[in-house]
């Protein structure tokens, strides 16, 4: 079941790829990654690592530095980040791990590994302006509490998202 089993069956799972490292570092958000000296304060402060040691910001930084492209981009755990920024909060070297993770997620999404939840949310934003659908039951509920009707619309968001190509991203296939 482990993704590493899948990877090793087809091709060597791990192999340094300097071009990957450079691709990541080309993003302004990833600057400073090389300053990381692997002290682990990020992982110590990561609530997801507490529950899933497989998710380790420290190891992620090192994996990127080593250029382990497939290992990083195919890693399902990078999507479990809860965006709390605990990793950045106590970094003694000012490494912006949250931003770097977003760069990695963008690259993984482009490569076809985005979880359906995020792709679906983008679809809804393009339709309703919000990440959720809106139905009659909700409208009724709001009316009952004398709250104004929700009026947001998705056209403008759709045009802007289309400009970035994010509307073309397909979700990874779930087993």
């Amino acid at each position: 079941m482990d993704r590493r089993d899948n990877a090793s069956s087809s091709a060597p799972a791990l192999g340094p790829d300097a071009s990957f490292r450079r691709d990541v570092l080309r993003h302004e958000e990833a600057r400073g990654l090389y300053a990381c000296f692997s002290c682990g304060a990020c992982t110590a402060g990561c609530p997801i690592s507490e529950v899933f040691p497989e998710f380790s910001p420290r190891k992620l930084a090192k994996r990127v530095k080593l250029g382990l492209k497939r290992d990083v981009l195919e890693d399902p755990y990078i999507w479990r980040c809860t965006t709390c920024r605990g990793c950045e909060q106590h970094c003694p070297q000012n490494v912006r791990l949250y931003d770097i993770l977003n760069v990695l997620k963008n690259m993984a999404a482009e490569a076809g590994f985005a979880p359906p939840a995020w792709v679906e949310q983008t679809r809804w934003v393009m339709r309703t302006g919000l990440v959720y659908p809106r139905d009659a039951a909700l409208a009724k509920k709001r009316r009952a509490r004398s709250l104004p009707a929700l009026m947001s619309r998705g056209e403008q968001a759709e045009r802007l998202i289309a400009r970035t190509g994010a509307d073309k991203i397909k979700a990874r296939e779930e087993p």
Partner: protein
Amino acid sequence: MAAKREPRIGLFLCHCGKNIAGGLDLEALAESSKGLAGIAYVTTHKFCCSEGGQAEIAGAIRGQNLDRVIVAACEPSLHLLTFQRCGEEAGIEPQFADLVDIRKWTMPGSPQKVDPGLALEESRKTVELAVKRMRLKRPVPLVTVKAEQAALVIGGGIAGLEAALDLADKGYQVHVVERQPTIGGKMALLYKVYPTNDCAPCILAPKTAYANIHPKIELLTNAEVRSVKGHVGGFRVEIVQSPRYVDTDTCTGCGDCVAACPRRVRDDVYAAGLGPRKAVFIPYDQAIPRKAVIDAANCLYFRNGTCRLCEKACLAGAIDFNQQPRTIGLSVGAIIVATGFEEYVPSAKTEYGFGRFGNVVTQFQLARLLDIDGPTKGRLLRPTDGREPRTIVMIQCVGSRDETAHPYCSGICCMYALKHAQIIREMVLPETEIHICYIDMRTPGKGFEEYYRRTRDMGILFIHGKPSEVAERPETKSLVVKVEDMDIGRPLELEADLVVLSCASVPPAGSEELSRILGIERDDSGFFKELHPKLRPVETRVRGVYLCGAAQGPKDIPASILQARAAASFADGELRRGTIRLPASMVKAEEIEKGGA
């Protein structure tokens, strides 16, 4: 006035191996330099500083009849002396030999490195200016001045005392200025020292006691340097000594005044904020001078004009509320700066809760808690409830190696954490679990790795990771330390009765002011700056002012002692002939106030 004879300048361009030649076209630089006014000879050499290079320079001076020499190579602090001596051998006065730095533009790793085109352009400018200066330069008249056979040592810690004793034994009169009411500095607060685990006061006391009775040493405690004028051989120093309100000649150090004093305040120095002292106090048993001192900010008499119980209690009549600040003028030939360091106050690292959680202390506080002469008489007790801690977590690199505090490694914290762990395990609380959270263990001194091994053998647990935060359990005031152990790659929550922070060493307050008074520089970290970090680690920009100990950067006791001896040796080297040759301009300038404004 007769026209000056046109000087004949020789210009020597150095390849420095590939460090310069690899980064710019030296032949082009040589070619363009040939036409400069005053230039009589230009050549390049692979290593100008080598024996062969120097021989070639000396040969050219004689063969080409040169009277001035410029070497374009590395920083003057590295080799100016080399080329001045080389020129002198061949008959050129040192002031007519110059070295200019063109290597900074080309050297791999230099922060100023630029591309070859720009390097050539910048080097050309540098050389042109140097040639212009050398051509126009007129001989500076040198004068002979008397070298005072006396030195000032600023700071009465282990480094300052070592330097003072060395110079005093060589026959110089030495004045030691110490801000605290006692000499001894940080070492007096350490309890024990690594790697021998000797008792710190036991090996410090012979030095302090000897300094106290040495006929050539004057100790000025409670005192600070206010101004310095003059030059090497003849510095005139003004010192202000704050009143002690106790006459040190009559005070016997009996402690009757202390017993009589009703005012109890927190002792931030000798008890590191963990115990009390009185408003009149003797800093500690082995203090030197072992005399009482009144802390006017807390004394009831100074606050509201009442009390005076100490005065009544003192049979010797030594209490003197009328003492005033005293200004002392000194003439010295050399100055040694030994102002040491302070422990970083970690309250700015709010994630570790220092100041917020009562059971988070620093290593210097821990040293006081372990000291049999400390606030708990050597019993290790938690500040909040006086209980013995069952588990202790030490956190390394607090405020060090940290871009949000101090980027540098303080160098001594690994070892003193090991020391405290050993003391607790061996002598204080053998059953207490001790965990040390670290990023890297740095133990490169003699016998230090063995010391680390010994600590591991004692069963101290090392956790490879920097904690992200410390939380307090409000009911028990015990602590939870969040850390990843990267060897197993798993975040942990360590329960701790006591958390000890190993904090950065930082420059003491007042360093900036002192750098202004002395006219010496400080580095980016605020420590005093040596003339060259590798080759001239004791001298400063000001001739006759030397550095030793942690004033120059964090260091341990053996390194401080070495550097103190080196500083004393430099001072002796300048002063021993009794006179010094100086440019007349320097002497002329001696009346001008330091401070630049």
